[in-house]
Protein backbone atom coordinates (compact mmCIF):
# COMPACT_ATOMS: atom_id res chain seq x y z
CA UNK A 1 0.00 0.00 0.00
CA UNK A 2 2.97 2.30 0.58
CA UNK A 3 3.83 1.83 -3.08
CA UNK A 4 0.30 2.70 -4.13
CA UNK A 5 0.48 5.85 -2.01
CA UNK A 6 3.76 6.77 -3.67
CA UNK A 7 2.19 6.17 -7.09
CA UNK A 8 -0.74 8.43 -6.21
CA UNK A 9 1.65 11.15 -5.13
CA UNK A 10 3.81 10.75 -8.24
CA UNK A 11 0.69 11.12 -10.35
CA UNK A 12 -0.18 14.43 -8.66
CA UNK A 13 3.27 15.69 -9.56
CA UNK A 14 3.24 14.29 -13.09
CA UNK A 15 -0.13 15.91 -13.81
CA UNK A 16 1.20 19.24 -12.57
CA UNK A 17 -1.06 19.63 -9.57
CA UNK A 18 1.78 19.80 -7.05
CA UNK A 19 5.33 21.10 -7.02
CA UNK A 20 8.48 20.75 -4.91
CA UNK A 21 6.98 22.77 -2.05
CA UNK A 22 4.70 19.82 -1.23
CA UNK A 23 7.78 17.66 -0.70
CA UNK A 24 9.26 20.37 1.54
CA UNK A 25 6.11 20.15 3.68
CA UNK A 26 6.35 16.36 3.87
CA UNK A 27 9.93 16.69 5.07
CA UNK A 28 8.57 18.67 8.03
CA UNK A 29 6.47 15.71 9.18
CA UNK A 30 7.87 13.83 12.16
CA UNK A 31 6.74 11.90 15.24
CA UNK A 32 5.67 15.18 16.89
CA UNK A 33 3.66 16.29 13.81
CA UNK A 34 2.79 13.11 11.91
CA UNK A 35 -0.09 14.76 10.00
CA UNK A 36 1.57 18.08 9.34
CA UNK A 37 0.91 18.17 5.60
CA UNK A 38 -2.77 17.31 5.94
CA UNK A 39 -3.15 19.93 8.71
CA UNK A 40 -1.47 22.61 6.60
CA UNK A 41 -3.54 21.76 3.52
CA UNK A 42 -6.71 21.83 5.63
CA UNK A 43 -5.67 25.22 6.97
CA UNK A 44 -5.09 26.44 3.40
CA UNK A 45 -8.56 25.44 2.24
CA UNK A 46 -10.18 26.84 5.37
CA UNK A 47 -8.41 30.20 5.24
CA UNK A 48 -8.70 30.66 1.49
CA UNK A 49 -12.52 30.49 1.54
CA UNK A 50 -12.56 34.11 2.71
CA UNK A 51 -10.17 35.15 -0.08
CA UNK A 52 -12.28 33.41 -2.72
CA UNK A 53 -15.38 35.20 -1.41
CA UNK A 54 -13.54 38.54 -1.41
CA UNK A 55 -12.45 37.97 -5.01
CA UNK A 56 -15.97 36.98 -6.11
CA UNK A 57 -17.44 40.10 -4.55
CA UNK A 58 -14.71 42.32 -5.97
CA UNK A 59 -15.25 40.87 -9.46
CA UNK A 60 -18.93 41.87 -9.31
CA UNK A 61 -18.13 45.54 -8.83
CA UNK A 62 -18.31 47.99 -11.70
CA UNK A 63 -15.81 49.40 -12.42
CA UNK A 64 -13.36 46.77 -11.25
CA UNK A 65 -10.76 47.81 -8.68
CA UNK A 66 -7.71 46.10 -10.17
CA UNK A 67 -5.49 47.15 -7.31
CA UNK A 68 -7.76 45.46 -4.77
CA UNK A 69 -8.15 42.39 -6.98
CA UNK A 70 -4.37 42.16 -7.32
CA UNK A 71 -3.91 42.48 -3.59
CA UNK A 72 -6.34 39.64 -2.86
CA UNK A 73 -4.74 37.47 -5.51
CA UNK A 74 -1.25 38.21 -4.15
CA UNK A 75 -2.38 36.73 -0.83
CA UNK A 76 -4.03 33.79 -2.54
CA UNK A 77 -0.94 33.08 -4.62
CA UNK A 78 1.23 33.21 -1.52
CA UNK A 79 -0.89 30.67 0.32
CA UNK A 80 -1.16 28.43 -2.73
CA UNK A 81 2.62 28.52 -3.14
CA UNK A 82 3.03 27.48 0.48
CA UNK A 83 1.34 24.13 -0.14
CA UNK A 84 2.81 23.56 -3.60
CA UNK A 85 -0.50 24.04 -5.45
CA UNK A 86 1.15 24.41 -8.86
CA UNK A 87 -1.84 24.74 -11.21
CA UNK A 88 -3.64 27.09 -8.81
CA UNK A 89 -0.48 29.21 -8.62
CA UNK A 90 -0.27 29.41 -12.41
CA UNK A 91 -3.84 30.76 -12.58
CA UNK A 92 -3.03 33.25 -9.82
CA UNK A 93 -0.08 34.54 -11.86
CA UNK A 94 -2.23 34.85 -14.98
CA UNK A 95 -4.93 36.68 -13.03
CA UNK A 96 -2.39 39.18 -11.70
CA UNK A 97 -1.13 39.78 -15.22
CA UNK A 98 -4.69 40.61 -16.30
CA UNK A 99 -4.96 42.98 -13.31
CA UNK A 100 -1.77 44.66 -14.41
CA UNK A 101 -3.14 45.21 -17.92
CA UNK A 102 -6.63 46.14 -16.70
CA UNK A 103 -8.28 43.22 -18.48
CA UNK A 104 -11.49 42.58 -16.56
CA UNK A 105 -12.77 39.80 -18.81
CA UNK A 106 -9.42 38.07 -18.53
CA UNK A 107 -9.62 38.30 -14.74
CA UNK A 108 -13.11 36.82 -14.67
CA UNK A 109 -12.23 34.01 -17.06
CA UNK A 110 -9.04 33.14 -15.18
CA UNK A 111 -10.82 33.21 -11.85
CA UNK A 112 -13.30 30.61 -13.07
CA UNK A 113 -10.39 28.38 -14.16
CA UNK A 114 -8.65 29.01 -10.85
CA UNK A 115 -11.71 27.86 -8.91
CA UNK A 116 -11.82 24.67 -10.99
CA UNK A 117 -8.17 23.90 -10.30
CA UNK A 118 -8.59 24.76 -6.61
CA UNK A 119 -11.60 22.43 -6.28
CA UNK A 120 -9.96 19.63 -8.28
CA UNK A 121 -6.83 19.73 -6.14
CA UNK A 122 -8.93 19.67 -2.98
CA UNK A 123 -10.71 16.49 -4.11
CA UNK A 124 -7.48 14.79 -5.14
CA UNK A 125 -5.73 15.66 -1.89
CA UNK A 126 -8.72 14.47 0.16
CA UNK A 127 -8.42 11.08 -1.53
CA UNK A 128 -4.63 11.09 -1.08
CA UNK A 129 -4.79 11.88 2.65
CA UNK A 130 -7.59 9.38 3.24
CA UNK A 131 -5.40 6.72 1.67
CA UNK A 132 -2.33 7.93 3.59
CA UNK A 133 -4.20 7.60 6.90
CA UNK A 134 -5.07 4.01 6.06
CA UNK A 135 -1.48 3.24 5.15
CA UNK A 136 -0.34 4.37 8.57
CA UNK A 137 2.61 6.42 9.91
CA UNK A 138 4.31 8.33 7.16
CA UNK A 139 7.68 7.09 6.00
CA UNK A 140 10.39 9.58 5.13
CA UNK A 141 9.31 11.87 2.30
CA UNK A 142 10.55 10.77 -1.10
CA UNK A 143 11.15 13.21 -3.90
CA UNK A 144 9.13 12.45 -7.02
CA UNK A 145 11.18 11.33 -10.03
Amino acid at each position, binding site marked *: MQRQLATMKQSLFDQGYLDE*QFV*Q*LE*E*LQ*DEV*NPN*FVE*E*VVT*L*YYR*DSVRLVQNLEQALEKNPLDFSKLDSYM*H*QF*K*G*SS*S*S*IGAKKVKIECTQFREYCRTGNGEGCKRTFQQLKKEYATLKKKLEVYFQFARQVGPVEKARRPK
Partner: protein
Amino acid sequence: MEEGKRVCALVVDDDRLSQRVHAALLRKYGILETEVVENGKEAVDLFKSGKTFDLVIMDLEMPVMDGSEATRELREMGVTSMIVGVTACEVEAEKAEFMRAGLDACWDKPLSGSAIIAMLDELAKKLL
Protein backbone atom coordinates in the same frame (compact mmCIF):
# COMPACT_ATOMS: atom_id res chain seq x y z
CA MET B 1 24.39 25.48 16.33
CA GLU B 2 26.63 25.66 19.39
CA GLU B 3 25.45 23.16 22.01
CA GLY B 4 23.94 24.65 25.12
CA LYS B 5 22.90 27.92 23.52
CA ARG B 6 19.18 28.12 22.93
CA VAL B 7 18.55 30.18 19.84
CA CYS B 8 15.23 32.02 19.94
CA ALA B 9 13.32 32.99 16.85
CA LEU B 10 10.34 35.21 16.13
CA VAL B 11 8.06 34.66 13.15
CA VAL B 12 6.18 37.79 12.10
CA ASP B 13 3.44 37.01 9.59
CA ASP B 14 -0.30 37.60 9.31
CA ASP B 15 -0.85 34.43 7.28
CA ARG B 16 -1.56 31.43 9.52
CA LEU B 17 -0.24 29.03 6.92
CA SER B 18 3.10 30.84 6.69
CA GLN B 19 3.29 31.00 10.49
CA ARG B 20 2.81 27.26 10.73
CA VAL B 21 5.25 26.37 7.97
CA HIS B 22 8.00 28.77 9.07
CA ALA B 23 7.78 27.64 12.70
CA ALA B 24 7.97 23.99 11.58
CA LEU B 25 10.98 24.74 9.34
CA LEU B 26 12.80 26.41 12.22
CA ARG B 27 12.01 23.51 14.52
CA LYS B 28 13.26 20.99 11.98
CA TYR B 29 16.63 22.77 11.84
CA GLY B 30 17.05 22.96 15.59
CA ILE B 31 15.39 26.22 16.65
CA LEU B 32 13.18 24.91 19.42
CA GLU B 33 12.09 28.25 20.85
CA THR B 34 9.95 30.13 18.38
CA GLU B 35 7.29 32.74 18.98
CA VAL B 36 4.78 33.85 16.40
CA VAL B 37 3.06 37.24 16.02
CA GLU B 38 0.65 38.55 13.39
CA ASN B 39 2.04 41.93 12.41
CA GLY B 40 4.94 44.31 12.74
CA LYS B 41 3.47 46.22 15.67
CA GLU B 42 3.21 43.05 17.77
CA ALA B 43 6.86 42.32 16.96
CA VAL B 44 7.95 45.82 18.00
CA ASP B 45 5.86 45.59 21.18
CA LEU B 46 7.52 42.28 22.09
CA PHE B 47 10.98 43.82 21.80
CA LYS B 48 9.81 46.89 23.76
CA SER B 49 8.60 44.58 26.53
CA GLY B 50 12.18 43.38 26.94
CA LYS B 51 12.07 40.14 24.99
CA THR B 52 14.98 39.34 22.73
CA PHE B 53 15.29 37.07 19.73
CA ASP B 54 18.35 35.95 17.82
CA LEU B 55 16.44 35.61 14.56
CA VAL B 56 13.36 37.40 13.26
CA ILE B 57 11.60 36.14 10.14
CA MET B 58 9.65 39.17 8.97
CA ASP B 59 6.94 39.10 6.33
CA LEU B 60 6.59 42.25 4.23
CA GLU B 61 2.87 42.72 3.72
CA MET B 62 0.93 42.75 6.96
CA PRO B 63 -1.93 44.83 8.34
CA VAL B 64 -1.44 47.36 11.19
CA MET B 65 2.33 47.62 10.59
CA ASP B 66 4.12 46.08 7.63
CA GLY B 67 7.53 44.45 7.60
CA SER B 68 9.43 47.49 6.33
CA GLU B 69 8.07 49.79 9.01
CA ALA B 70 8.59 47.21 11.76
CA THR B 71 12.18 46.56 10.66
CA ARG B 72 12.93 50.29 10.56
CA GLU B 73 11.51 50.76 14.03
CA LEU B 74 13.39 47.81 15.47
CA ARG B 75 16.69 49.10 14.07
CA GLU B 76 15.96 52.59 15.41
CA MET B 77 15.38 50.99 18.82
CA GLY B 78 18.88 49.53 18.58
CA VAL B 79 17.80 45.94 17.93
CA THR B 80 20.73 44.00 16.46
CA SER B 81 18.96 40.66 16.01
CA MET B 82 19.25 39.04 12.62
CA ILE B 83 16.14 40.15 10.73
CA VAL B 84 15.37 38.21 7.58
CA GLY B 85 12.62 39.43 5.32
CA VAL B 86 10.34 37.04 3.46
CA THR B 87 7.98 38.07 0.72
CA ALA B 88 5.96 36.72 -2.17
CA CYS B 89 6.29 40.14 -3.77
CA GLU B 90 7.73 39.97 -7.28
CA VAL B 91 8.60 43.65 -7.63
CA GLU B 92 12.38 44.04 -7.21
CA ALA B 93 12.06 47.70 -6.21
CA GLU B 94 9.81 46.77 -3.28
CA LYS B 95 12.20 44.05 -2.16
CA ALA B 96 15.09 46.53 -2.38
CA GLU B 97 13.16 48.99 -0.24
CA PHE B 98 12.46 46.24 2.28
CA MET B 99 16.21 45.51 2.44
CA ARG B 100 16.94 49.22 2.95
CA ALA B 101 14.68 49.19 6.03
CA GLY B 102 17.46 47.27 7.77
CA LEU B 103 17.18 43.61 6.87
CA ASP B 104 20.13 41.26 6.96
CA ALA B 105 18.69 39.30 4.04
CA CYS B 106 15.50 38.91 2.05
CA TRP B 107 14.13 35.61 0.77
CA ASP B 108 11.26 34.69 -1.49
CA LYS B 109 8.25 32.92 -0.06
CA PRO B 110 7.75 30.06 0.43
CA LEU B 111 10.91 29.47 2.43
CA SER B 112 12.78 26.27 1.75
CA GLY B 113 14.97 24.11 3.92
CA SER B 114 18.07 25.41 2.11
CA ALA B 115 17.02 29.01 2.86
CA ILE B 116 16.72 28.19 6.56
CA ILE B 117 20.13 26.47 6.53
CA ALA B 118 21.69 29.53 4.88
CA MET B 119 20.05 31.81 7.48
CA LEU B 120 21.23 29.68 10.38
CA ASP B 121 24.78 29.52 8.97
CA GLU B 122 24.85 33.32 8.91
CA LEU B 123 23.35 33.46 12.39
CA ALA B 124 25.97 31.06 13.71
CA LYS B 125 28.74 33.33 12.37
CA LYS B 126 27.04 36.35 13.91
CA LEU B 127 26.67 34.72 17.32
CA LEU B 128 30.29 33.56 17.54
